[in-house]
C-alpha cells in the first residue's frame, strides 16, 4: 500500500495562542494518542505535507502565508485548528482580519473549539492523515468519517457544543445579544421561531448559558468537532420554538415559561393568572385587575 510519512508544519496566522499551546500539549503528552499517528514535525515548510493553521488570518500574516503555501508540494492536507481558522470566530469584522483561512488555501479538516480539546485536535489531525493517504493513493476523499481515535471522554462539566431545550426557550434573544462571536441567530419563520447555533463560529464560552433567564440553552460535553470542510456551514444545532394563540385577541405570541412568570409576578399566585394572554392583552388585564 502506498503511504506517505506525514510531516507537519504549523502556521499561526494571528491566534490568541490557545490553539498553539494546546497543539503542543497534544503533540507532546502521551495520553492524547498523537504519537500513534507517527507524525513528524517538519523544520521547513517545503518538507511538509500536513499543514496546520491556527488563527483568524491577520492582514500582516496574509502575504506571508501565501508565500509559504507556494513552497508546498502536492499532495498535502490542510487542517485548521480552532474556531478562528474556520470563520475568524470572535475577531471577525475587525479591520485587521483578512480571513478566514479558506479564502487563501483549500482546507480539508476543520477543528472547531476555542481552543479545541487536545483530544479533538488529535482526532482532527488523524483525519487529516487519513485524507493525506487517500490523496497519495488517488482514491476518492471520504467526506463523512468515523471517529478514528478511541477511548476519549470528557468530564460532564466540559463546555462543548451548545444545545437547546426548545420547550423552555422564549425566544427572548438574550443569548443572541451576549454571544461575542455571532454564533446564535433567531429568526421568525411562519408562526415558529427558528433558533440556530452554528458550532463553527461558536467560541464555547458559555456566556449564553449563564445569561439565559430560563435555563433553556445549555452546553453539552460533546467535543466531536473535527469535521470535513464540507460540513463548515452545516454543522449547526437547529431548534423550533412554538408560538400560541392569545385567548383574548387570537394573535400568535410566544408564551412565557412558568419560571419567567414567577420572576415577574413575585407577589401573585401565578396559577390564578390567565396563562394564555399575549403581552398586549396581559397589560390590559393587569390594568383592569389592579386599578379598576
Amino acid at each position, binding site marked *: 500500500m502506498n503511504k506517505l510519512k506525514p510531516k507537519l508544519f504549523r502556521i499561526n496566522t494571528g491566534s490568541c495562542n490557545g490553539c498553539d499551546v494546546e497543539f503542543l500539549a497534544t503533540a507532546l503528552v502521551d495520553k492524547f494518542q498523537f504519537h500513534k499517528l507517527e507524525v513528524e514535525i517538519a523544520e521547513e515548510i517545503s518538507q511538509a505535507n500536513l499543514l496546520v493553521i491556527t488563527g483568524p488570518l491577520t*492582514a500582516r500574516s496574509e502575504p506571508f502565508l501565501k508565500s509559504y503555501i507556494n513552497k508546498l508540494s502536492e499532495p498535502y492536507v490542510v487542517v485548521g485548528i480552532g474556531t478562528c481558522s474556520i470563520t475568524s470566530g470572535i475577531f471577525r*469584522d475587525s479591520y485587521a482580519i483578512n480571513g478566514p483561512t479558506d479564502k487563501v488555501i483549500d482546507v480539508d479538516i476543520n477543528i472547531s473549539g476555542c481552543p479545541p480539546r487536545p483530544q479533538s485536535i488529535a482526532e482532527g489531525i488523524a483525519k487529516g492523515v487519513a485524507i493525506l493517504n487517500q490523496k497519495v493513493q488517488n482514491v476518492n476523499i471520504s467526506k463523512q468519517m468515523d471517529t478514528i481515535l478511541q477511548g476519549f471522554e470528557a468530564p460532564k462539566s466540559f463546555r462543548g457544543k451548545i444545545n437547546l431545550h426548545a420547550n423552555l426557550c422564549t425566544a427572548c434573544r438574550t443569548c443572541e445579544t451576549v454571544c461575542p462571536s455571532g454564533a446564535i*441567530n433567531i429568526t421568525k419563520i411562519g408562526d415558529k421561531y427558528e433558533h440556530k447555533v452554528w458550532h463553527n463560529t461558536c467560541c464555547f464560552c458559555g456566556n449564553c448559558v449563564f445569561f439565559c433567564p430560563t435555563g433553556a440553552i445549555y452546553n453539552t460535553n460533546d467535543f466531536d468537532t473535527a469535521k470535513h470542510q464540507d460540513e463548515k456551514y*452545516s454543522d449547526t444545532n437547529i431548534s423550533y420554538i412554538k408560538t400560541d394563540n392569545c385567548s383574548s385577541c387570537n394573535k400568535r405570541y410566544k408564551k412565557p415559561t412558568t419560571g419567567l412568570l414567577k420572576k415577574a409576578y413575585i407577589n401573585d399566585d401565578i396559577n390564578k393568572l390567565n396563562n394564555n394572554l399575549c403581552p398586549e392583552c396581559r397589560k390590559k388585564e393587569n390594568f383592569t385587575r389592579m386599578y379598576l
Partner: protein
Amino acid sequence: MPRVQKKRKFYKDVFVNTSKFIKILRETLGEQCSIKEDKDSYGNHSIWMKLKVKESINVVANSIKSFKGRCIVATAYKNRDGSHTIIYHFDINGTILNVEIKTNDNMFFSITPIIPSANWAEREIREMYGVEPIGHPNTDRLFLDYSIAKGVLNEFIPLSKLQRGVSKTDIMWKKVEEDINNG
C-alpha cells in the same frame, strides 16, 4: 565561552511621597494643570492630572524621571469635535499617575527621549490615530500592517461595515441559511 557574571546591586525602593511630587508639579506648572486624587476601594491611590498646554508634558516627564518613575502606557481617543485626547499612565513606586493632554493639530511632543518606556505607546498613537509624536526616535510602524491606512481607530463605525455595507458575519450566516434550507 561563559561570560563572567557581575555582582549586581539589588534594586532599592525609592521612597516616594506622592504629595511631595504633586507639590513640585504645582509649583512649576501652577495654573497650567489641574490635579485630582482618587482612591479605590482597596486603598490604592491614583492621581489624575489635566494639562492646559500640551507642551507641559515635558515638565511632568522630567519630574517623573527624577522620581525614578516609568511610563506604563498611553491612551488616546478621538473626541467628537475632531480633537484628540492623550492620557499618559505613569507609575511611581506603586502609585498611578494619569496625565491628560489635548491636541487639535494632530501632533504632540514625544517624551520617549526622556522616558524610554513611552516608546511603543507613542508609536501606537501615531499609527492608530494618525497623531504625530514630534521628536520620537522611531518612524516605522509597530503593529499596523501597511495595507491598512493609519489612523484606523479614528473611525467611529467599524471599517468592515463602512467598506462593504454588510459584515462578514452576515455573509457567512447567509451560507448557513442556505445549507439549512437545502436540508
